[in-house]
């Protein structure tokens, strides 16, 4: 289904980890809160109270999606805010008990940058290595714990390689030692079933635009009884834990999106998995292309690869000229011009990391789109390989050029 307006050419949106389109029902639910229902939820008169009621209903919907109590949900502006809030807020709240924080090397920038901020403020941070699939080993978590350890934060699934981490096992390790456990579940919430009680985490970050909700809405689950220091100071919104007048339309939209995600989850997973497996099977038929992340234990809507001898941005551009939209972790596509730390951490050499490409799927995608893509992609790879000075190295017997 074509969700991208344009010139009539076929458009395949394969970048759902970047963002999702808004579900039409979500938009309908949000509309009154852009217009007549503009009241401030803190106001005691009727329009204010209606807005208050709307965000409390959204809180229930979001809580229900992850099997939590409504009072444990703090709305934020984004997944990045939820992550920054979780790591900084927990470390500061527990600074009298210790100064050691554990994260993995496959975290999102919002966790890694917050960790570096904490390091500059006097905390000690361990960046746990991962194996070739991107898995964090719960035993390694156990071994890195010291008397000073106060917080562990491990991503639920990386949107770059799709691998789903053994959060439950890691949370058990944390629980046994009374260490606070956070997981960045931005890529997983709304896409795979999440039960915070089953996962055993104390904190969990999410973002609405990863499950057909609006941008500008995220949330942090904070288990009852866990103390956290606010990131944003001011008024008494969100139980005094996150100040600022609430983004009512976005919060209402997030609630509706959560409700739809919960009821439609198995159908969504089935739809995406079928297309994902078709992409993985088709792309791996091309010589010298490798899957990144784990084959089975990965996000249902996520297929990621590294392609030898060519560069990611060039692939993205050629695909986009064919109306196919995807993502890459190559240095050229990043503003910092550095290869993705996630790819390097799973042992992919710098040169090969340049050939990274990620396809992520959603409900708009069809089998015909995948067929079209599987026809175009090998041609694009061939065209770029014809231009590549490294293709001849292969004939010399080397499997992959990994210099640099």
């Amino acid at each position, binding site marked *: 289904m074509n969700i991208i307006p344009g010139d009539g050419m076929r458009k395949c949106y394969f970048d759902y980890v970047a963002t999702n389109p808004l579900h039409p029902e979500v938009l309908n639910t949000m509309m009154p809160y852009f217009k007549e229902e503009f009241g401030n939820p803190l106001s005691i008169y009727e329009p204010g109270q209606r807005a208050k009621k709307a965000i409390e209903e959204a809180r229930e919907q979001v809580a229900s999606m992850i099997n939590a109590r409504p009072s444990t949900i703090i709305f934020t502006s984004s997944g990045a805010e939820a992550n920054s809030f979780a790591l900084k807020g927990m470390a500061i709240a527990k600074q009298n008990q210790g100064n050691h924080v554990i994260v993995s090397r496959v975290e999102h920038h919002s966790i890694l940058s917050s960790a570096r901020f904490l390091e500059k403020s006097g905390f000690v941070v361990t960046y746990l290595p991962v194996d070739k699939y991107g898995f964090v080993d719960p035993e390694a978590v156990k071994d890195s714990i010291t008397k000073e350890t106060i917080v562990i934060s491990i991503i639920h699934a990386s949107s770059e390689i799709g691998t789903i981490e053994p959060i439950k096992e890691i949370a058990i390790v944390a629980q046994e030692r009374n260490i606070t456990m956070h997981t960045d579940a931005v890529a997983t919430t709304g896409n795979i079933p999440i039960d915070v009680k089953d996962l055993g985490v104390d904190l969990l970050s999410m973002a609405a635009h990863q499950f057909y909700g609006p941008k500008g809405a995220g949330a942090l689950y904070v288990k009852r009884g866990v103390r956290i220091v606010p990131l944003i100071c001011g008024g008494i919104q969100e139980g005094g834990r996150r100040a600022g007048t609430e983004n009512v339309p976005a919060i209402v939209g997030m609630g509706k999106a959560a409700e739809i995600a919960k009821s439609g989850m198995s159908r969504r997973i089935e739809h995406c998995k079928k297309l994902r497996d078709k992409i993985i099977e088709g792309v791996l038929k091309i010589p010298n292309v490798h899957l990144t992340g784990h084959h089975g234990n990965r996000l249902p809507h996520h297929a990621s690869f590294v392609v030898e*001898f*060519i*560069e*990611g*941005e*060039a692939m993205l*551009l*050629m695909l986009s*000229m064919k109306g196919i939209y995807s993502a890459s972790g*190559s*240095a*050229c*596509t990043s*503003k910092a*011009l*550095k*290869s993705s730390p996630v790819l390097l951490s799973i042992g992919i050499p*710098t*040169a090969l990391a*340049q050939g990274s490409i990620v396809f992520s799927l959603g409900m708009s995608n069809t089998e015909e789109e995948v067929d079209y893509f599987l026809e175009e992609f090998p041609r694009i790879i061939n065209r770029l390989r*014809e*231009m*590549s*000075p*490294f293709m001849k190295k292969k004939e010399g017997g080397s499997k992959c050029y990994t*210099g*640099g």
Partner: protein
Amino acid sequence: MYSEKVNDHFMNPRNVGEILGADGIGIEGNLACGDVMQISIQVENDKIVDAKFKTFGCGAAIAVSSMITEMVKGKTPADALKISKEDVVQELGGLPPQKMHCSNLGANALRKAVEDYRKKGKVYIA
């Protein structure tokens, strides 16, 4: 993101390949940054009569390679050395700021190709 000219040279690159028995070959680049460029030239009677490229890199790197191989044809090796990075960018109608350094390797690769040609001493021009 890119100018129309860059897109054109990226989608329809000119002079892709390697000249067999080239008179000069220059390679420039860094894989950590993501771009490596190889330019080969053929020189006859003190004129560059052919230039080809092979490039591992992003859209900008490929467009730069394509453009500089077009610009250099018909020039003397001495004049080829005068082509600057800025000249290539200008011909391409500009490049995004973050692409000015890493991807703009054409002038350096060409300089190395001319130096290689001079070292080989097919026809030495001072």
